[in-house]
């Protein structure tokens, strides 16, 4: 890096979020502008346009950092190609950052409580450049690992306290030791990059923003376990992640970092991508292996565990993307350093995907033990449109919804389970007073029902019956006794399903019943949706007293069903209204019901 420290750098987010917001056009605009103005000659320095991975604050993309030699980086958000000439003119050439266009103070606040370790390369270096990776500790971890015996490497991971980030939180070192202890020469290492949990996208960002870091973590795992072949199972919906990872793998083969005698370190490791094909259950490890073998992704009973009988019948170790990414950093800095971060039961940092009704949606990396409240309010700026917080859904379809009273829960495997949710992969969906909890339970059940592989009856039929009850309730057709039936079935399905999907699918129903029972009761007894959200129970009327006459509903209605004049109360024409709910979501005063 030293060689080009003198360069002017323009770091442009080229993650999926950045590209969706037009990052390619922004990058081109910078290159054109540098050429058109002859900027390099004027300033006597090379101007480098660098495509980085996700920076976390995807909602504010396109994010651009200008780094002038010897100065702190300055971040601009919502950058468009039109803004580029001004940035070049005033900032790059005249060294006067454009105060008005800089990312506001919320960006500093967004970063303040975070500790970006796993994300330290993601979003700051060129995701596609091996040189950048090497300049930022790249491959120093595996080099250190090979100076140790396999048992010592596993012991180091055990001492670090790292627990799997794929959901269950199983201690990684212990898992490795099982597979290492299995007899036989042929063993497989699999990275689970299926990320089926809707609302989570941290694994995708690591694949897109730091693919070499993942490869290094897998190399360390392969060395420790004594296996020579690895797969990364990536979901097909992630075309950019697959492309970047494939490029990184190809580069590693070219340079001799992968294959026979990796990097000359005396061990062999081959790595291949398997593209998934769109089935949530394939994230479950036995189903995932079936899928790699070319079968339907059906779970099978355990034991035998994969460490004993896995892919093609050989001992296999499966870890999540973020888990492998953590491994690299444990070997850069040592187990003692790693275990000094986090809580007693959960070491290191955890990446959360914050989405829903929160101001700054995005990816957040905080030390374990930070509270939910800090994550939602301090890092992510609190609730959108000054509405009231209602719940946060943690742990995806297998997790639960936590109410305000539980916001002091620390993000830690054990505290979250105590509160009635779980860490899961780390998706946090924030909900406000306009979100109906019965509808959310219905939503998750619909998801798990569709994704059930259908092998066992409680999961296949049971979820369907529960879903039908929930659908009735959201339509105002709930009956006395429904809630008791839901609860009974929930416990039965949890007990009798074969795999994790069925065993956890009822959780969203149970947690909403635990904390938001009154909402269910309002639907059943009063045929009313307290959040005014269930479409069938929504009247689409403006409440005169609540209407602040702002006209937002008028502006947003796509079919001109709202009449409003400056200073007047809005009126919805029920004939014209298509019940699209745009106005309902847009109104800041809860004046539409």
């Amino acid at each position, binding site marked *: 890096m030293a060689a080009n420290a003198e360069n002017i750098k323009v770091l442009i987010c080229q993650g*999926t979020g950045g590209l*969706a917001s037009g990052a390619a056009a922004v990058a081109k605009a910078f290159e054109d502008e540098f050429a058109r103005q002859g900027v390099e000659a004027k300033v006597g320095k090379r101007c480098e346009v660098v495509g980085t991975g996700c920076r976390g604050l995807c909602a504010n993309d396109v994010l651009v950092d200008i780094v002038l030699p010897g100065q702190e980086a300055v971040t601009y958000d919502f950058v468009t190609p039109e803004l580029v000439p001004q940035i070049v003119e005033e900032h790059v050439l005249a060294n006067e950052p454009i105060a008005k266009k800089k990312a506001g103070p919320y960006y500093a606040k967004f970063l303040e409580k975070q500790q970006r370790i796993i994300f330290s390369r993601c979003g700051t270096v060129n995701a596609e450049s091996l040189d950048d990776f090497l300049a930022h500790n790249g491959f120093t971890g595996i080099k250190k690992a090979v100076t140790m015996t396999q048992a010592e490497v596993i012991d180091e991971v055990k001492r670090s306290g790292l627990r799997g980030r794929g959901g269950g939180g199983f201690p990684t070192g212990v898992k490795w030791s099982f597979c290492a202890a299995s007899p036989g020469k042929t063993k497989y290492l699999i990275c689970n990059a299926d990320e*089926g949990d*809707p609302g989570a996208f941290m694994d995708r960002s690591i694949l897109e923003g730091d693919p070499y870091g993942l490869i290094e973590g897998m190399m360390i795992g392969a060395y420790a376990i004594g296996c020579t072949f690895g797969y990364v199972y990536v979901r097909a919906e992630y075309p950019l992640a697959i492309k970047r990872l494939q490029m990184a793998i190809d580069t590693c083969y070219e340079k001799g970092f992968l294959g026979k005698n990796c990097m000359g370190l005396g061990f062999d490791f081959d790595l291949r991508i*398997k593209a998934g*094909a769109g089935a949530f259950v394939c994230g479950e490890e036995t189903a995932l292996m079936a899928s790699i073998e070319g079968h339907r992704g059906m779970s099978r009973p355990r034991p035998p565990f994969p460490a004993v009988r896995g892919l093609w019948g050989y001992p296999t170790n499966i870890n999540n993307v973020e888990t492998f990414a953590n491994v690299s950093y444990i070997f850069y800095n040592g187990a003692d350093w790693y275990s000094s971060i986090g809580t007693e039961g959960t070491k290191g940092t955890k990446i959360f995907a914050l989405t*829903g009704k929160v101001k700054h949606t995005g990816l957040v990396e905080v030390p374990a033990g930070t509270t939910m409240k800090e994550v939602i309010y301090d890092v992510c700026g609190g609730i959108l449109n000054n509405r009231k917080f209602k719940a946060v859904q943690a742990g995806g379809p297998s997790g639960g919804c936590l109410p305000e009273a539980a916001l002091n829960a620390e993000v830690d495997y054990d505290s979250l389970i105590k509160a009635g949710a779980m860490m899961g992969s780390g998706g946090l969906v924030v909900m406000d007073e306009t979100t109906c909890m019965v509808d959310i339970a219905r939503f998750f059940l619909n998801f798990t029902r569709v994704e059930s592989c259908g092998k066992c009856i409680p999961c296949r039929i049971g979820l369907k019956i529960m879903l039908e009850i929930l659908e009735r309730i959201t339509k105002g057709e709930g009956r006395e006794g429904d809630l008791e039936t839901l609860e009974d079935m929930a416990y039965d399905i949890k007990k009798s399903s074969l795999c994790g999907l069925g065993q956890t699918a009822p959780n969203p129903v149970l947690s909403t019943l635990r904390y938001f029972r009154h909402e269910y009761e309002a639907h059943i007894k009063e045929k009313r949706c307290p959040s005014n959200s269930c479409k069938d129970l929504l009247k689409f009327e403006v409440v005169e007293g609540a209407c602040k006459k702002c006209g937002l509903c008028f502006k947003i209605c796509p079919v001109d069903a709202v009449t409003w004049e400056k200073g007047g109360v809005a009126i919805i024409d029920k004939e014209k209204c298509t019940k699209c709910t745009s106005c309902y979501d847009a109104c800041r005063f809860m004046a539409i019901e």
Partner: protein
Amino acid sequence: MSNAAENVQEQEIDLAGANQVIDKYLDMKGALMPVLQGIQEFYGYVPEPTVPLVAERLNVYPSQIYGVLTFYAQFHLKPRGKYIVRVCMGTACHVKGAGRIAGTLEERLGITHAETTEDLKFTAEYVACIGACGMAPVIMVNDATYGSMSVQKMDEVIAKYKAME
């Protein structure tokens, strides 16, 4: 389901493309999925006549192939439109109004999940998560992602692709 798709099925399929894909993976363990993915990439869907071919050359039962084809959301047995509109129905998008985005698509194109317009231009697909949840609600048209969708923006995107060839 549109009948346009049915008509095309009667056409002859040139199996050379499928054979090329199979050649590429023939020696690989677990070749079935990559082969089917390759065939779908080549034809845009998995044409029926390729199934016996794959069965014979990879030495697997056609029933296993159909098992795989129907299990995974990704595979399609009918021709699809030129523009595949994927509407995310994931949690983050649901909370931010994915329902009305899907509603708009259905209303403007007259198709719903897994359907294709008569002119073979658009196919609608509702998917579990696109992985851009920070910009919910999200849709994808082929490989392009569009975030922070509203009914108006959805109209604009549809109009843009309608105007394209």
